[in-house]
């Protein structure tokens, strides 16, 4: 299955976003990489790297990011990762939910999951 990694500056936010996405995600592997590792707000390339390994069962990983250094550190981690991984250009929570659902499609591919994640920008809330 295509896996997901959720990168946020806050460990709680990343863990919680994974909770919300997992509700709809069936067996999709979804890993959180939140905070900078010392309980401080930030992101950490090693945590992202570990999450990529954990989420990747060979079909690739879609990475959801919040802002700023999350994007850059995710890029660095992806460059170092042995396997395919793509950052979705989407809101982090909404993209994660969409991607989690998309990954449960028996015909899902890395491309289709990224596409669904990115479709989350079009979600109307009100």
């Amino acid at each position, binding site marked *: 299955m295509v896996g997901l990694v959720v990168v946020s500056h806050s460990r709680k936010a990343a863990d919680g976003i994974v909770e919300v996405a997992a509700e709809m995600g069936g067996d999709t592997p979804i890993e959180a990489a939140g905070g*900078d590792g010392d309980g401080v707000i*930030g992101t950490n390339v090693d945590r992202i790297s570990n999450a990529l390994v954990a989420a990747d069962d060979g079909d690739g990983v879609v990475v959801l990011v919040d802002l700023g250094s999350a994007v850059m*550190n995710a890029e660095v981690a992806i460059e170092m990762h042995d396997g395919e991984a793509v950052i979705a250009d989407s809101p982090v929570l909404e993209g994660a939910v969409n991607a989690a659902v998309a990954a449960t499609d028996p015909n899902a591919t890395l491309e289709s999951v990224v596409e669904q994640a990115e479709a989350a920008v079009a979600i109307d809330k009100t």
Partner: protein
Amino acid sequence: MSGDGAVVVAAVEAVADRIQAERDHLTDLDSAIGDADHGGNMARGWAEAAEAVADLADPDAQTAVKTAGKTVLSEVGGAAGPLYGGSLVFASQELEGGVTPETAVAFAETYLEKVQDRGDASVGAGTMVDALTPAVHTFKKSIETDELPPLEALTKAVAAAEAGVQFTVPIRASKGRASYLGWRSVGHQDPGATSTLYIMEELLAVAAGHLDSEVPDVDASSPTIPDAEAAEE
């Protein structure tokens, strides 16, 4: 330990000390237009980097730079981690043959490219790129075109970085956290540009000590680089 590797280790230690000394100032700058963690981020990262390079047994320059970069990359939770750390790791390849004026220019250019590439910030976005770009341009021209001695080239580069730091004050930030402030970012000095300047000042000081010579007295307020005369030559 001797040679280029030892100079790099000394430089990393000097940077760590300087950043520690400027920690609160950097945090103040980041608190005005960001999240008030640049001082802490940098101090932690460079302190760890200094320890890591000190632990290396007789490293060459490339290894020492790469180790410092890896440590900064792993330890810094903010944008400074991938920007400083990741770019040092990447640019370290240019020092494979040791540190010469030519490899130093190549290192500087590759480092700048990686920072721009990673952060996707152009000059004028109010980031460290604004300090780094004129510094690297000046260093390159001073070495390659003007054939200045390395210390003089580096001195001019520091002056150029200083001009870049000042340039971040009146301009509206369009990258990094400061960009969230929109027009309210105008009038504020960028923390990352500032820490870039501090690092370059330390590189200059360490290089001067190493080359056993005085820092040349270049007028920082009017660096000779990309100026009209030079262009006409």
